[in-house]
């Protein structure tokens, strides 16, 4: 079992002929993901790697192949439209990898996607992987292994770090989800925690947050009041100076809200395990499985 994607996921890749899109489409195919279609306007009728049919529009791709999930690798100026195109095409899950999408674009896209009942993950995220079944995005497949831990994170490479440490210690994962670090994203911690709580295969959850905003505090409140499964949390940016933007739009401390200290206190108050270092996830997880 898993959340959001599994071996039945049929994927359409938007931007399949671009530099990143083609590289990662191949990686996903090698991992075993059912990549059923690609989309690049003007290249409809061609094939990617000699096998995957390319379409001019997502709607064409969905109609011809029955794709139920889309992944987006298009450049930032086109990303918002690509998300809306996917959400209008009939897929139920849209994963946007693109980094640098203007936040005002997302204020339009978010209600558009919600009103169609479509789940959006990202933008500015590494996507997700259900080890041994399917990967949608850019998380390196070989660092993951099937097992009982659900992973959710605002960061990309920090997710890899923690998953790598868990895998090295023999602790596998049900699904790893990178929700992205932008101020407005389609799926938040609580959405993922709720999905993991319902997933019978997930026995414990690893959650990696960052400074800035209040998502982690709200997640802690959800864990305290709505969850039975154990959760271990980590906050990146404990030593970041206040008021400075650290790459992610999300990682901004403004005023007294959104500090690492505040988030760690919320974790402790929710009875969560608190990892001081990425490696601490290993022992904290072992104690909870």
């Amino acid at each position, binding site marked *: 079992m898993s959340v959001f994607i599994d071996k039945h996921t049929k994927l359409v890749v938007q931007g399949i002929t671009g*530099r*990143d899109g083609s590289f*990662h489409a191949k990686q996903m195919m090698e991992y075993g993901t059912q990549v059923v279609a690609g989309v690049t306007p003007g290249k409809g009728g061609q094939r990617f790697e000699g096998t995957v049919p390319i379409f001019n529009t997502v709607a064409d791709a969905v109609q011809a192949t029955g794709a139920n999930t889309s992944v987006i690798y298009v450049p*930032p*100026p086109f990303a918002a439209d690509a998300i809306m195109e996917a959400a209008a095409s009939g897929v139920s899950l849209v994963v946007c990898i693109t*980094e*640098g*999408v*203007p*936040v*005002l674009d*997302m*204020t*339009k896209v*978010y*209600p558009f996607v919600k009103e169609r009942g479509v789940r959006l993950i990202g933008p500015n995220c*590494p996507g997700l992987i259900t080890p041994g079944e399917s990967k949608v995005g*850019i*998380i*390196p497949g070989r*660092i993951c292994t099937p097992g009982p831990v659900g992973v959710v*994170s*605002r*960061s*990309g*490479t*920090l*997710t*890899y*770090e923690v998953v*790598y440490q868990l895998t090295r210690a023999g602790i596998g994962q049900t699904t790893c989800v990178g929700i992205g*670090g932008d*101020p*407005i994203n389609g799926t938040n911690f609580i959405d993922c925690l709720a999905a993991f709580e319902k997933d019978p295969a997930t026995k414990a959850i690893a959650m*990696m947050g*960052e*400074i800035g*905003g*209040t*998502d982690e505090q709200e997640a802690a409140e959800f864990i305290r009041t709505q969850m039975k499964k154990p959760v271990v949390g*980590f906050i*990146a*940016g*404990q*030593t*970041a*100076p206040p008021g*400075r933007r*650290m*790459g*992610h*739009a*999300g*990682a901004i401390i403004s*005023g007294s809200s959104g500090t690492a200290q505040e988030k760690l206190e919320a974790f402790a108050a929710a009875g969560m395990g608190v990892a*001081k*270092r*990425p*490696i601490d996830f290993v022992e904290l997880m072992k104690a909870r499985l």
Partner: protein
Amino acid sequence: MNLHEYQAKEILRAQGVNIPPGRVATTPAEAEAIAKEYGVPVMVKAQVHAGGRGKAGGVKFCKTPAEAKEKATAILGMKIKELTVEQVLVTVAADIGSEAYVGIIVDRATKKPVFMVSAAGGIDIEEVAASTPEKILYVPVDVRYGLPTYDAMRMGFFLYSDVTLARGAAKIMQQLYAAFMASGCSLAEINPLVVTPAGELVAVDGKMVIDDNELDRRPEIAALRDERSEEPSEVDARHANLTFIKLDGNVGCVVNGAGLAMATMDLVKYYGGEPANFLDIGGSSNPEKVVNALRIITADPNVKAILFNIFGGITRTDDVANGIVTATKANPLKVPIVIRLTGTNEEIAMQILTNNGFTASSDMDTAVQQAVALAKGGK
């Protein structure tokens, strides 16, 4: 990206907001001339990207052009929060009856731009928000419909009981909203919005923060960037497409991804060291980025050891290895380097590094401990 007050005011004025006339000056003589041209009294206001300008002595009231010259002499060149004042705004001083606050930010919780307005404006607005939140009205905006008149009027009446003032304020909300959307802002505010004793609404100070992701498609806004008001190494890094923030420690960090970069800094601190910087080389890396990263980091004399922590996903670790080799061949390092890399194309990367006399590990904790020890003069 932050705009200066005078830049924000130009944008608001273009939308029709009533702004006291004025111009920016870089010399005391210019300040005097502007005061003569527009008439006294004037305010002379330091243009730096720092809050608390008034409390630092960077904002002065002047009754004569000569006084404007004198105050500009004092303010130009002064430091406010480490930033040197290179220019002052000389602007006609408004008579202040009452001060309100009007701002918009992109709110993460509602995923919308949200207006915040308060009749208790001025320099203590943050204190008002913290201690008397009921004095602030929050109004989210659905960008698909824009700011409807009824919402703008609701805010107008929250600020003023007089219908003429409420209508005037509502119009200013619409203009502020238009400026916010047209400039790609993540924050825009007028504080204070003043009612003069004559009953006129005037925007006496303005602030805008632009979403960096908007700059590519808004060259006219990107051109407003004032690089003199930024840390030189950070300007250099931005030109190289790197996200860099200078800090005070001695372990220079090169990492891919903001989350891992922050976690690496945290780990340096955990093992008793101090990071010299935050540096994210981003996704799709190429060797050139690594060359630039090393150049920027080694330019900091405080750096006693360099730590690479690369977890390849979209970043190919062989690109990073090639960058390290190229950079150090051109400019041999004077400080020790510790390399941790794992992920995409790791075997090729390790081969490149070994062939060129570097050692690399795949464990983050080991690498961080080594770098901290080396920075302290150990081995």
